[in-house]
């Protein structure tokens, strides 16, 4: 089975989920978990080739005229993310079967989850940036639905909306950046873009492109100052938080940066922006994380910190930093998802996630404790777990950077904060005397701990046997930098500066753990005021948007036809006038001399139309309009439009008759407008007239396309057997148009008839009722 079909299968499974969960409430979830398992198996089958340096490629034409195709490009980086998404997905799906057992909307939950999972896999396997973007937005929409899963409560709804607004606003910026990249390089195909990185980096628009793409990545990966949506998104059910907000969706921004690394990285702008924003996010997250009281908040802030760390490392660039990116990504997925699930289990068993009221849970749920312990130790960065290897590489990369002191300090502070957070979230709830909440806790079934324990143990296995992750790390690093990589992945690197720094971090981290409760008391007493918070700015901007929109609508649209018309005219003149001005070039001078007949007809036309608008009664106006119409038909006659002349005479006669018959009873025109509005309208109308004059003159110069009249002139006799070409066009070449026209007239005639009838009925209601 091929990759595109498998992806399609994900959407099919998503559509089937609600029905399946209804008929098989227990087994349904497990059956659905086959999809991510199959996807992972497929990736494993592709893996040998890909790791040997032959990416999987496949293209389906979609919109070839626009250069958009549904193409797939799976290299080592895609492989890594695809496996992470699928395998963590399996664990989350199995876990959710226990966590949400008997939930009324279980089917809906799985449908959204599968849709999200498929979209995620589509992003990482995408080979065309436009199809990548579409899948990217799909993850945003499905995550909106997942965060707002408890839709009957207001807080989750608001959190979901905030996440959606922020990530899609970034998505729009991303699209603009991608379109710019595509039009510079002349292709949207990922492989060709990555091969032409110099073209983009040396382009004048590089700065804009970088900022736009970074906006997309930073919003999705919750980088400062867009970070605040992530902790709020913890309103989602815990399996969702474990999945979306640790291992998958928030990593997409990082994935994008890694994906475009060969195209965008290596410039001073790249390094400055990524290390600054990544560094701020990393330190801020790490410092706030251990002092939260909600278990999920602790994990959310630590996730922020890790996302910042990944961005920071991508900003530093170079072989060691990229190796750290890969290792941190793997380690993080293996410890953060289990920790979230452990928090969910604790919440399920005790009914609380408050750190203060949780302790001594180890006897009630030993296996969950084991999971928390292993995952927590990996997050702590304790040997021999994979987290330790990742942290060592991080310190290595910051020591090797151009500014080792600030970068290493930031990395060390982060390490210390994350240590305390790991302690608080993964280990502390299980130690000590059982609290009241722990005493009331119920035991948990294997469904709660089997998957998380498996994931967490992988972190231990990979740390002990680094040979298992080495080829993947090498491959993914090579894929990110776009060139082969060579290094060792090992638990023990000998006595290096990184090890020494690590030792300091370990010591200080232990100190922070010991002092955490004391410090938290102190910190809680401080009132944080005066600092401008990004979330407040967001809220103000959000409200301002409505104020502006309402103001704009009130100013430009009203229930008065005249005001609306004036607005439209004004905008039309402004935009159209600007376009005419841009086209430039004075209209051609008169080429053909005027005949006295033409001057006469034109003058009559003008005089009659002015008389029509100055008329004080309907009858006078109707007469003058008649003159206008007859003058028009004379003009048509002069310039060889016989049919038009005839039609115009007939229609004009009918119009005048109708006018007289229908509205002869109307009162004389009252002067309703003030002098001021009259003058304003006259100016607007004159400007429109002048614009139209120039438009006509310009039309003689502009020739967008060869006229098709030649075709009609050539084919009228031999193919349509008519000598009057205008008639032939109407009844033969464009016969369907004429049919449409007749239909419109029929409808109009019916409307007129009904309107006139209903007017009579209302005027003499009794008579009608009597008959």
């Amino acid at each position, binding site marked *: 089975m091929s990759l595109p079909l498998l992806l399609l299968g994900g959407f099919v499974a998503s559509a089937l989920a609600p029905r399946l969960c209804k008929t098989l409430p227990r087994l349904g979830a497990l059956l659905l978990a086959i999809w991510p398992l199959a996807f992972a198996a497929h990736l494993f089958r592709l893996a040998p080739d890909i790791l040997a340096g032959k990416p999987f490629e496949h293209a389906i034409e979609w919109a070839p005229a626009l250069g958009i195709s549904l193409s797939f490009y799976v290299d080592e980086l895609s492989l890594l993310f695809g496996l992470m998404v699928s395998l963590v997905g399996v664990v989350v799906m199995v876990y959710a079967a226990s966590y949400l057992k008997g939930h009324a909307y279980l089917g809906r939950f799985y449908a959204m989850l599968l849709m999200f999972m498929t979209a995620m896999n589509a992003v990482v396997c995408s080979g065309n940036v436009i199809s990548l973007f579409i899948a990217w937005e799909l993850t945003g929409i499905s995550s909106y639905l997942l965060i707002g899963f408890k839709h009957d409560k207001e807080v989750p709804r608001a959190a979901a909306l905030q996440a959606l607004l922020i990530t899609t606003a970034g998505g729009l910026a991303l699209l603009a950046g991608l379109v710019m990249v595509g039009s510079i390089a002349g292709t949207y195909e990922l492989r060709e873009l990555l091969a032409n990185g110099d073209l983009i980096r040396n382009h004048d628009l590089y700065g804009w492109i970088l900022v736009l793409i970074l906006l997309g990545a930073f919003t999705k990966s919750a980088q400062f100052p867009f970070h605040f949506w992530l902790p709020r998104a913890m309103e989602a059910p815990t399996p969702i938080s474990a999945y979306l907000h640790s291992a998958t969706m928030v990593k997409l921004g990082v994935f994008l940066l890694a994906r475009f690394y060969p195209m965008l990285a290596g410039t001073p702008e790249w390094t400055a922006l990524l290390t600054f924003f990544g560094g701020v996010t990393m330190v801020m997250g790490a410092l706030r994380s251990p002092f939260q009281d909600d278990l999920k908040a602790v994990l959310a802030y630590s996730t922020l910190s890790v996302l910042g760390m990944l961005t920071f490392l991508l900003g530093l660039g170079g072989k060691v930093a990229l190796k750290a990116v890969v290792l941190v990504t793997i380690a993080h997925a293996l410890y953060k998802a289990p920790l979230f699930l452990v928090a969910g289990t604790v919440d399920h068993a005790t009914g609380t996630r408050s750190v203060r009221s949780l302790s001594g849970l180890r006897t009630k749920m030993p296996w969950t404790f084991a999971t928390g312990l292993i995952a927590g130790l990996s997050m702590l960065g304790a040997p021999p777990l994979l987290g330790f290897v990742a942290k060592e590489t991080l310190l290595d990369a910051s020591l090797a950077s151009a500014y080792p002191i600030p970068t290493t300090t930031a990395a060390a502070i982060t390490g210390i904060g994350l240590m305390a957070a790991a302690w608080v979230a993964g280990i502390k709830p299980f130690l000590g005397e059982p609290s009241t909440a722990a005493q009331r806790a119920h035991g948990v079934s294997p469904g709660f701990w089997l998957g998380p324990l498996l994931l967490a143990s992988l972190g231990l296995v990979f740390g002990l046997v680094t040979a298992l992750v080495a080829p993947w790390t090498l491959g993914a690093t090579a894929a990110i930098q776009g060139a082969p990589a060579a290094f060792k992945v090992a638990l023990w690197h000998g006595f290096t500066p990184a090890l020494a720094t690590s030792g300091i971090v370990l010591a200080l981290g232990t100190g922070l753990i010991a002092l955490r409760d004391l410090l938290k008391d102190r910190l809680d007493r401080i009132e944080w005021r005066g600092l401008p918070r990004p979330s407040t700015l967001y809220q103000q901007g959000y409200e301002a948007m409505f104020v502006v929109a309402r103001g704009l609508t009130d100013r430009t649209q009203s229930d*008065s036809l005249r005001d609306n018309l004036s607005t439209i005219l004004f905008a039309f003149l402004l935009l159209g006038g600007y376009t005419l001005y841009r086209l430039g070039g004075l209209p051609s001078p008169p080429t053909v001399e005027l005949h006295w007949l033409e001057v006469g007809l034109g003058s009559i036309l003008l005089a009659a139309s002015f008389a029509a608008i100055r008329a004080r009664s309907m009858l006078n*106006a109707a007469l003058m309009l008649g003159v206008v119409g007859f003058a028009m038909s004379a003009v048509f006659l002069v310039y*060889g439009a016989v049919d038009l002349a005839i039609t115009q005479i007939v229609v004009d006669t009918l119009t005048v008759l109708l006018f007289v018959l229908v509205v002869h009873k109307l009162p004389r025109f009252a002067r309703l407008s003030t002098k001021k509005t009259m003058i304003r309208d006259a100016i607007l109308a004159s400007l429109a007239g002048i614009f139209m004059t120039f438009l006509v003159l310009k039309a003689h110069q502009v020739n967008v396309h060869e006229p098709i009249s030649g075709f009609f002139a050539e084919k009228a006799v031999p193919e349509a057997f008519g000598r009057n070409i205008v008639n032939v066009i109407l009844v033969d070449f464009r016969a369907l*148009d004429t049919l449409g026209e007749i239909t419109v007239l029929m409808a109009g005639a019916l409307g007129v008839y009904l*309107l*006139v009838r209903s007017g009579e009925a209302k005027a003499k209601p009794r008579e009608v009722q009597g008959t």
Partner: protein
Amino acid sequence: MEWFWAIIVGALFATAIFQLLRRNLAKLAIGLILLSNAANLLIFSSAGLTRGKPPMVPEGVETLAAGHADPLPQALILTAIVISFGVIAFFLALLRLASQRLGITDLEELKE
């Protein structure tokens, strides 16, 4: 010649638009008629004007020689004339209803 008709078109549009901006419903109808005439003349004149040579193929010849009036704008305008007649007829019927039933001839009063 082009300049002359371009100015006439502009003037027709100006009168039509001025009339459309009035409050009186009947004047709106006048504006609509003027507007449709202005639009027709706009298409007619911007396609290029040829004096006295209608686009008809003479007997005995298979195709139309160059130098005749362009048949395409004529066909378009023919359609436009008829459709705008339909629109105006409908509007006049509405106008009659408004004055008969509600006694209203002022657009601003129609809002309530």
